[in-house]
């Protein structure tokens, strides 16, 4: 599905979402008549300091002015890898975008991420992984790290890595692997109305509490994370 197809299927009642150099900003009308703030990264654009600041500004301007949920569309490259971005403190800009999204989610503006293309590394952390519910569309191809780069670092052949990837979801790229980890909550169908699926999700949003480690355990992708976090939490509470 192209971005236009996706937005049309999500918002048959109309939208004002514009793409400018890969940065998506706007809002749309839900079936209920309520408004949904929309932002995102399109066309596999790298997320650098300029893009991140425009996205966080869009959310901050909306807080206090509007109400309703927030949608983050994601088809990005990795973070922009450049001297200029690092010189200016890219880590702060990406963290700021994530912080603004998390703050909004915790304060009455539930956030949904929709991963419909690529994304990786810092760009994924600052967008989709900073939302309450991350949804994947079939065909999305997120990769924390691509296999050729992994081959270089681990000094293993591509064949060896591909073989290992069959038995574990923990390192290999792909939507289903991230779903098994608990990072992607659900995968929507692209053959039925996205508006129907969005409406169903909004009617049954999970609590704001982060349950991704439990989800990863139930799905068999991360067997230890939830238990270790729980044990440390209990020990720390007792130490008070």
């Amino acid at each position, binding site marked *: 599905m192209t971005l236009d197809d996706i937005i049309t299927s999500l918002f048959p009642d109309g939208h004002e979402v514009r793409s400018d150099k890969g940065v998506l900003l706007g809002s749309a009308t839900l079936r209920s008549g309520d408004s949904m703030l929309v932002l995102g990264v399109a066309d596999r654009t790298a997320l650098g300091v300029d893009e991140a600041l425009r996205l966080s500004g869009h959310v901050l301007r909306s807080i206090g002015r509007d109400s309703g949920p927030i949608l983050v569309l994601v088809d990005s490259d990795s973070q922009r890898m450049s001297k200029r971005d690092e010189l200016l403190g890219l880590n702060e800009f990406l963290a700021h975008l994530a912080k603004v999204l998390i703050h909004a989610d915790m304060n009455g503006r539930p956030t949904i991420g929709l991963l419909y293309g690529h994304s990786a590394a810092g760009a994924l952390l600052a967008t989709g992984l900073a939302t309450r519910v991350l949804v994947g569309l079939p065909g999305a191809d997120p990769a*924390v790290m691509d296999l050729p780069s992994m081959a270089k670092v681990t000094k293993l052949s591509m064949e060896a890595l591909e073989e290992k990837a069959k038995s574990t979801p923990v390192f290999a790229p792909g939507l289903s692997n991230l779903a098994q980890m608990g990072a992607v909550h659900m995968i929507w169908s692209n053959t039925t109305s996205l508006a129907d699926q969005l409406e169903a999700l909004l009617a049954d949003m999970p609590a704001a509490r982060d349950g991704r480690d439990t989800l990863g355990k139930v799905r068999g992708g991360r067997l230890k994370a939830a238990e270790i976090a729980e044990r440390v939490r209990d020990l720390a509470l007792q130490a008070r």
Partner: protein
Amino acid sequence: MTAPLKDITPAERARSTSFYEASARTRLELLLDAGSFVEFIGPEQREVSPHLKIFDLPEQFDDGIVVGHGRLDGAQVFVAAQEGRFMGGAFGEVHGAKLTGLLRAARQIGSIPVLILFDTGGVRLQEANAGELAIAEIMRAVMEARSSGVKVIGLIGGRSGCYGGGGLIAGCCSALAVSEPGRIAVSGPEVIETNRGVEEFDSRDRALVWRTMGGKHRRLLGAADVFAADNVQDFREAALELLGLVGPLGLERLKAEQERLADRLRRYGACEDAVDIWTAEGIVHAETVPELPADQFIALADRIGRTSRDAR
């Protein structure tokens, strides 16, 4: 003549111990009040990564992070210290979950601060998906803790620096202290060079790496509020100073951060090099900044450098 060990006070020992060279455990021992540290899920419990054996890699019994509680000038604090000498301090499933659990407890209690001693290259590639998600969970947990009034302070001065997702977590903290060798960035020098070519970034040019990502630049830019000399006592004093300064997180702070970062792009967005930024900040002979000893640099930074106070 060196004095017998028993005559050296803990503060003197901390003062003479390089933060950069010390292990995670030594850093915690000397950072906190003597003998006060208690670990949660220590190495004797052998909670190792379940994934490294897939790659025939050795495990470490603490998975490269030490978490627990102790006292700082008598007051209780939660602490987490990454071990940069194990897999570059990278975030894996168990490693990350220990920090997440600590932050969730801090949120529930609301009044005990958290100190994070970063020393990390970012996501552990052999468990990239689990590590990436662990970082996302930590960022969320930092924000939830801060929103409940918890102060989360990052200390950055280890040999692996604070890269990748570690840089994003650092950006979520209430405040940071950094030393000269503490580097903060998302993409590491080798990653930029591999992806964009040596013309974009020469990773072997160490002076370029330090002035683009190192502690002095981050302090002058306002990314870190306190600059520490490379010893554990200085970091202890920096942590105490920051704990006295930072306030609770709210919408106003995020709006102020938006303005702070926008202002940075307006002022320095066209600069080609850190020296150009320092010159634009009003530093005379900016090219000499990398050579300045810590005390002279701190005096300069306090006079000219920006801060992120109330705007992060």
